[in-house]
C-alpha cells in the first residue's frame, strides 16, 4: 500500500458537506449542522515475531443534526451518494419530530465563543512522518517491542498481545450559523501485555506508548515498564483488611483522575450524577494543586483547534489551588448555567451527537521524585495496577471500589508483592486524602487524554483476608 501515498481529504469533506447543506435547505428546519469525518488506519499484531494480523481501514461518514422548533434530530450514513444523503436528511428531520423541545437547542453563535481565535494550528497535530512511515518499518518496530520485552526478564514467558495502531483523521464542520472549517490529526500507539511465570504463579503487566508518529515512541521504555510491571507482582499474596496509606503509580492515579474528570462534566452535574454539584468555589483538595483541561497542548493527543460544535479550544483551570473553579461545558450545558462553553463538545464519531467530553485533562506535577514519595510514605501499599474501575464507581454516591495489586512497602522499601485485594474510597475523600504529588506525570489515552503524576494518598480502606 506504500505506493498509494495518503492524499489530504479536507476539501473533499467540505465539498460533501456543502452538497448536503444545499439539500437540507429544501426541508422545513430552523438550523442544521453537518459533520463529516474520515479516518485511515492501520492495526498490526505480532505474535512470536510473525505478523499475526494486519488491518487496513479507510472509512468516511457524515452525521447530520437538524434543529426544528428547538428539537433536535440526528442521522448518519457511510454511503455518500446523493440518494443516501437525501435519506439521511429525511431521517434526521423525522427524528426531530419526536425529541423533546428545549429552549437552549440552537447552534452556537460567535458571541458565545470564549476564545475567538484558533490557539493551535492543525499543522502541529499532523505528522508527515507518520504518513510516510512504511508498513515494513511498522512491523519492524512492533517486532522489536516484542523481543525487547522478552529480553528484559527471564521470567517473561509469553506476550499476550503486542499491537501497533495508527490513524490519520480528518474532520470538517459546516453549520447554518456560518461556521465552516476543518482540521486533521495523526496519532499512533503501541501496546504490550507481558505474561510472566515463576513456580505456579502467573502474572501480567502491560504498558503502552503513543504519539503523533512512531518516532515519538520510546520502544525501550515501553518494553522496560511492561516487563517490570509484569514480574513485580509475581508471588503476590493477599494482605489483611486494614486502613493504610497508598502510593498510586501514574497508570493508576490517571485512572482515578479520569473519574474526577467525568464528575466535572456539566452534563453529569446538571443530571445530578456528580458529587461536585453545587461545589463551585469550594476547596475540594486539601493541598494546593491545579488541574487543567487543555485542548491546545502540542503533545496532547486530544488537542484540536475547535471542538465538536466548532467552538475554539483553550485551556480551562478546573481546579486551582485545590478549589473547584468551573465545570466543563458544551454550548447547551453552558446556556443552562448561564455561562460560556469551555470548548468541551466532544464527538466520538459521525455516529453520535456532540456530548460533553474532556480534552487533555491533567494534574500539574510537583518537583517531588517518586523515590521521595516512597520514603515519605514509609509503610504502605504501592499500587501498580487496578482492575474494575469502570464498574467500581458509583458517580451518584461517589463510591469507588476496585481490585488492586502492587507492592507492600516497609520503611520506604519494597517488602513483598500483594494481589487480590480491593481498595475502597469515594471521590471527595480521595481528593481530600491526597497528601503529596510526584513529578512523574504520565498521560493515558481513552475518552480523552488524562495525565497524572504519582500520588501519595492517606488512610484508604483495603480488603483482603
Amino acid at each position: 500500500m506504500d505506493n498509494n501515498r495518503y492524499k489530504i481529504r479536507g476539501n473533499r469533506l467540505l465539498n460533501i458537506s456543502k452538497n448536503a447543506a444545499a439539500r437540507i435547505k429544501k426541508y422545513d428546519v430552523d438550523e442544521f449542522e453537518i459533520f463529516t469525518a474520515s479516518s485511515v488506519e492501520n492495526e498490526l499484531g505480532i505474535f512470536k515475531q510473525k505478523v499475526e494480523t494486519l488491518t487496513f481501514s479507510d472509512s468516511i461518514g457524515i452525521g447530520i443534526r437538524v434543529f426544528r422548533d428547538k428539537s433536535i434530530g440526528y442521522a448518519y450514513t457511510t454511503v455518500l451518494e446523493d440518494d443516501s444523503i437525501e435519506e439521511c436528511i429525511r431521517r434526521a428531520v423525522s427524528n426531530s419530530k419526536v425529541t423533546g423541545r428545549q429552549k437552549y437547542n440552537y447552534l452556537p453563535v460567535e458571541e458565545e465563543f470564549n476564545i475567538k481565535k484558533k490557539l493551535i494550528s492543525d499543522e502541529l497535530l499532523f505528522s508527515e512522518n507518520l504518513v510516510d512511515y512504511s508498513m515494513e518499518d511498522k512491523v519492524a518496530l512492533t517486532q522489536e517491542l516484542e523481543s525487547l520485552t522478552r529480553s528484559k526478564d527471564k521470567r517473561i514467558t509469553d506476550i499476550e498481545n503486542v499491537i501497533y495502531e495508527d490513524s490519520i483523521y480528518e474532520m470538517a464542520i459546516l453549520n447554518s450559523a456560518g461556521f465552516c472549517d476543518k482540521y486533521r490529526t495523526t496519532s499512533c500507539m503501541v501496546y504490550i501485555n507481558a505474561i510472566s511465570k515463576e513456580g505456579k504463579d502467573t502474572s501480567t503487566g502491560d504498558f503502552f506508548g503513543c504519539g503523533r508518529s512512531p518516532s515519538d515512541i520510546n520502544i525501550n521504555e515501553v518494553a522496560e515498564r511492561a516487563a517490570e510491571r509484569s514480574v513485580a507482582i509475581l508471588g503476590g499474596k493477599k494482605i489483611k483488611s486494614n486502613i493504610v496509606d497508598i502510593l498510586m503509580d501514574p497508570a493508576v492515579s490517571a485512572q482515578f483522575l479520569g473519574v474526577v474528570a467525568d464528575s466535572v462534566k456539566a452534563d453529569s452535574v446538571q443530571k445530578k450524577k456528580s458529587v461536585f454539584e453545587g461545589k463551585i468555589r469550594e476547596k475540594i483538595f486539601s493541598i494546593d494543586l491545579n488541574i487543567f483541561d487543555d485542548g491546545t497542548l502540542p503533545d496532547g493527543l486530544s488537542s484540536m483547534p475547535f471542538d465538536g460544535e466548532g467552538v475554539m479550544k483553550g485551556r480551562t483551570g478546573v481546579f486551582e489551588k485545590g478549589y473547584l473553579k468551573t465545570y466543563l461545558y458544551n454550548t447547551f450545558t453552558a446556556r443552562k448555567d448561564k455561562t460560556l462553553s469551555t470548548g468541551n463538545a466532544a464527538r466520538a464519531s459521525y455516529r453520535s451527537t456532540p456530548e460533553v467530553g474532556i480534552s487533555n485533562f491533567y494534574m500539574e506535577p510537583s518537583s517531588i521524585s517518586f523515590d521521595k514519595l516512597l520514603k515519605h510514605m514509609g509503610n504502605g501499599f504501592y499500587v501498580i495496577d487496578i482492575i474494575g474501575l469502570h464498574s467500581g464507581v458509583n458517580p451518584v454516591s461517589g463510591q469507588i471500589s476496585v481490585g488492586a495489586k502492587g507492592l507492600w512497602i516497609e520503611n520506604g522499601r519494597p517488602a513483598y508483592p500483594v494481589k487480590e485485594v480491593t481498595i475502597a474510597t469515594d471521590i471527595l475523600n480521595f481528593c481530600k486524602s491526597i497528601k503529596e504529588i510526584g513529578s512523574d506525570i504520565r498521560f493515558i489515552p481513552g475518552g480523552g487524554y488524562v495525565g497524572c503524576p504519582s500520588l501519595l494518598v492517606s488512610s484508604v480502606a483495603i480488603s483482603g483476608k
Partner: protein
Amino acid sequence: MIDEKTARKVLNILLKNGADFSEIFIQKRAVNNLRLEDSKIENSTSGYELGCGLRLWAGESTFYAYVDSIKNDKLVNAAKVLSSVVNGSSSIKVLDLTGTSSSYDIKIKKLPSQINTGGKKNILKLVDRSSRDFNSAVIQVTSLLSDLEEEIFIANSYGAFSYEKVVKTFLAVNVVARRGNNARTGYKSLARTKGYEVFEEKDPVNLAEEASKIAVTMLDAVSAPTGELPLVIGPAFGGVIFHEACGHGLEADAILKDASVFKGKIGKKIASKLVTAVDDSTIKYRWGSYKFDGEGFPSHKTVLIKEGILQNYICDLKTSKKMGVEQTGNGRRQSFRNIPIPRMTNTYIDNGNEKPESILRSVSKGIYAKEFAGGQVDPATGDFVFGISEGYLIENGKISFPIKDAILIGNGPDILNKIEAVGNNLDYAPGFCGKNGQTVSNEVGQPTIKVSKITVGGTKSGNG
C-alpha cells in the same frame, strides 16, 4: 447484495499472490436509537452503514481491509491492494460457491422499520411513567430503545457462502432513587434477536418496575462486610462471572497464545463435578443467537465443561484449524470493519438438582449477589473483580439486609472448584461483551449457585 460472479472474482483476486484463504463479508445495517431522560426524548438517531470486509491468510498471517462501499470497482480495487502485501506459494482458486445450510430458523413478526418513531417514543414514555409510579423515591429515569435490521453475506475461497437477515431489539432502563442524601440505581434490560413483538411477550412496564424495585430496595442497603465469606450467586445475570472469569479463558485464541490457565486441560477436571457449562448460539431469539457466525459457519451448541471435566474450547475457523479440532461456530465480529475472532454467544452454567431455597438455607453467614455492575478480568490469570449492584446479607440461611458498594475479587479457575451447590432454576440475561476493541451481543446464564468462599471488598473499613 452482490452477485455470485462478483464474489468469486474478488475472492480470486485476493488469492492471486499465493494466499491460502480468502473471504468477503458484506454488511448492510440500519439502526435506530431513542434515548429518554428527564421524561423527555433526549436523542433520536438513525444510522445507515454499508460496507465490505476482505480477509486473507498467508502462512501464519491474517490480512484484512475494509471499505465503506460494495461497488464492484471499489471491491476489486481493495482486493488488489490487499493481495499485493502477500508473497505466498499457494496456487488455489475459487470454484463454484455453494450455500451453507443452517438448522436455525426463526420468524420475525414486527420489523423495526414498520414501527413509526412515534410508537417507539410511546414505549419509552410508558417505561418512564411506570418507573416513576412504582415509588415516589424514584427521581430519575434514563431509558434506551435501540433496534437494528441488517443483512449479511459471506463467501470464502473454500466455496461456501451464507446469507442472513438479522433483526435486534433492545430496551434498557436505568432508575435513580433518592432518599435524603442517599441515592441508588437500578438497571434492567430486555434484548432479543427479534422485532417489536418482543414487547407482546414481555411488558415494558414490568421491566421498568423491576429496575425501580432494585433502586428503591438498595436505598436501605447497609455497608457490605469485608473479608472472605461464602457467596450465593443468583440466577440469570449471575452467569456473568462465569462468562468473564472462565469463558474468556476458554476462547481458543487465548489458548493458542498460552494466555489461559485452561491450556492443555481438555479431558481434565477443572471444576467442581456439579458444573456443566455450555455455549449455545442455537437458542431461538436469544441475544447471542444467529443463523451463521461472522464467518458463515452455522450456529452450534458446544458443551464446554461436563460434570467438571473440560470438553471443548470456543473456536473460530482459524483457531480450529490450528488446533485440529472441529469448528464451533464462534467466529464473531462487531461489523465489516473487524476481523472475526473466537467469541462466546449464549454461555451458561447448566441446571443442577438443588432448590434455590435449600442453597440459601445452607449458609449461616454470607453474601447473596443478584445483579452485577459489570467487572473486569485478566484473562491470562483468571483474576477478576465484580461490583455487586444488587446484593444482600445472608444470615442463618435467610436473606436479610441489602448491602451497598460491595465488590468481589477472586480467580475464575479457583472459584470453579469452590462451587458447592448448583440450583435447578437456570435463567438467562442479555449483555454486551467487549474484546480486542469489538463489542458483540451475548447472553449469560446460570441457576443459583454457591461458592464456598470469596473475598468481598466493601466500604465498611477495618477488619472483616
